[in-house]
């Protein structure tokens, strides 16, 4: 496969481009998605290439964006919709939980919901209120949905292609902080990465560190110092929040006996709690220290001038990992 340097925005654009070219049932829409190519330029050029019937701007109404996608899917299309920022999905919450997640079950499998909801999420870009939150657990806990979060451009492309090809509804959460921050060689042609499988990024023996999205890179920043401190970290990129790859996680925890979870989400009632519960259910006898959540406060994401208090730093990751290893 020919490779090209891409950031995550390019990679997502490439995935959409490939699938639009391949499958006439795919339509892509949302606020400012068409002419402008999205406020993050993720859909740039696609309207020109595929026409305004397939890539287009919608009126400003998230419930209808999701709701119409549900109708389109029921009638045989495969919509990929964009919610402009994580903080603006909530008007669509009823459509997502009551219909997107339930239509298949309600119709006993007659009506499938091959809908991808793209959501730029997370902090670290000095944004206004409502633009920075990480509420993936809200969606992960809804029976009927799947939630995918990539941490690199290549993963974003491969996972998005799988998401678009899936017949299940998928919330595809894009860590906007690393939209342009990471560049790597990404295959230009079509490839896919399976949903529901975690990835061991660095194997290690002392502690299992689970992260996803923008936090993978933050953990990676802490790795050299951890190595210096003689701590061998097994870093796992979760990639899919639900369904969770418990096998990979449990195997690792059984090996290391220690678990640190790193995420931008608020601490309580989040993905971290589920991973700790899983560790207890699958690896109780192996646990040598209390699993630790290195997560955000149970507060609202501060505006930029307070965000440094809130955001997870590599130092904090280091601090908590060594504490857990020393336990």
């Amino acid at each position, binding site marked *: 496969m020919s490779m090209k340097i891409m950031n995550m925005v390019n990679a997502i654009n490439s995935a959409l481009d490939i699938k639009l070219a391949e499958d006439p049932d795919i*339509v892509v829409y949302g606020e400012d998605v068409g002419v402008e190519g999205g406020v993050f330029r993720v859909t740039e050029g696609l309207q020109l290439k595929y026409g305004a019937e397939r890539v287009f701007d919608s009126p400003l*109404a998230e419930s*209808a964006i999701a709701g*119409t996608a*549900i109708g*389109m*899917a029921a009638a045989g299309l495969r919509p990929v919709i964009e919610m402009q920022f994580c903080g603006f999905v909530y008007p669509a919450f*009823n459509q997502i939980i009551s*219909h997107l997640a339930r239509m298949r079950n309600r119709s006993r499998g007659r009506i499938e919901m091959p809908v991808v909801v793209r959501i730029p999420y997370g902090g670290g870009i000095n944004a206004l209120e409502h633009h920075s939150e990480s509420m993936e657990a809200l969606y992960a806990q809804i029976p009927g949905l799947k939630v995918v979060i990539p941490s690199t451009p290549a993963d974003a492309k491969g996972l998005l292609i799988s998401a678009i090809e899936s017949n299940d509804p998928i919330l595809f959460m894009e860590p906007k902080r690393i939209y342009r921050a990471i560049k790597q060689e990404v295959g230009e042609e079509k490839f896919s990465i399976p949903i529901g499988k975690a990835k061991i990024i660095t194997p290690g023996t002392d502690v299992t560190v689970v992260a996803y999205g923008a936090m993978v890179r933050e953990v990676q920043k802490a790795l050299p110092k951890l190595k210096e401190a003689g701590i061998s970290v097994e870093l796992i990129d979760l990639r899919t929040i639900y369904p969770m790859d*418990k096998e990979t996680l449990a195997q690792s925890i059984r090996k290391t006996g220690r678990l640190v979870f790193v995420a931008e989400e608020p601490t309580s009632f989040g993905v971290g709690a589920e991973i700790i519960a899983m560790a207890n259910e699958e690896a109780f006898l192996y646990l040598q220290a209390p699993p630790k959540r290195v997560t955000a406060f149970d507060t609202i994401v501060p505006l930029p001038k307070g965000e440094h208090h809130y955001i997870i730093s590599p130092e904090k990751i280091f601090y908590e990992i060594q504490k857990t290893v020393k336990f």
Partner: protein
Amino acid sequence: MFKEFDATKKKIFRVMDDDGHIISDKHMPLIEENQLIDAYHNMVFARTADHMIISYQRQGRIYTYPPNYGQEAIHGATAMVMRPDDWLVPAFREMGAWLAKGATLKDIFLYFMGYEVGNTWPAANHFLPISVPIASQLPHAAGIGYAIKYKKLDEVVFAFVGDGGTSEGDFHEALNFAAVWKVPVVFIVQNNQFAISVPFRMQTASAGIAIKSVAYGMPGIQVDGNDFFAMLKTLQEASAYCREGNGPVLIEAVTYRKGAHTTSDDPTKYRSKEEEETWEKKDPLKRLKNYLDSKNLLDETEDRRLEEQYRLEIDRIFVEAENQPASPLEDVFKYMYADMPDDLKKQQVEHENFLQWKESNS
């Protein structure tokens, strides 16, 4: 017609009066006599079923059920206008339209007895399941309309909602999207004067619902929903308008919920006998029957025989539904995902282990 009865003119469209006399010949819809008689009988069938379900419910043989009394002309007219490939996006109070779309009475019984399978309309085409969150089905109709337009199909969507439902944000968003996209959706609001106990005047301060079409730049018409001919004519014109690619239409069918909201509701708490009696005079079946009688199209004996036949048939179907085997455990899991997560499989197995234990410990 949408010009003549443009919603801003605040005229209600009627073809027959309360006694079944035709008051506007020029608006009389084209319909063959035998079709008309069939339509009448279908409405009688629906009402008979409604009555019987209420009594089944009182006997504890079926759960909460929303009766259709008084609104049958809307459903009967929709039934006549929908083509096989047209879409039906239901609210939850338009049984006559469901039956026409290919739902069976058994499906309906099963659903209200608490079986998911009833809601999948196995014999029907282009028919979404009932889903309870008010008005949330309307954006689906707009999305289906988009798919129809995108695929250049000759189909129309008939989407139902109640007067109460017009207050929800999804009503607004759906109509707006449908109009901006110019997609073929006939939005039918059954204004039956109540949302459970809340009367229409407390739902909105607007002059009606049809007039809300102005906010979306689509034609809107207020129709006497208890006038079968007016409903039929309106729906015929609306679906033709949609089919020609003109975009959506809003129909306000003014009617009255003669029964309770559902079998768990008691309307005497919030409305008067007088009001009910006023509306009784406008009963859609009675009006159509008067018309048919005036044309000598009905045969009393035959009708009584039919009704008796309906009762037997409905009861037979009901008993059949009652004999539906219980839903197995796996049905709780099976339809959740196209690609089922291992976790769910495991939850099922663990529960089966428990059931085995329970078996062997009792």
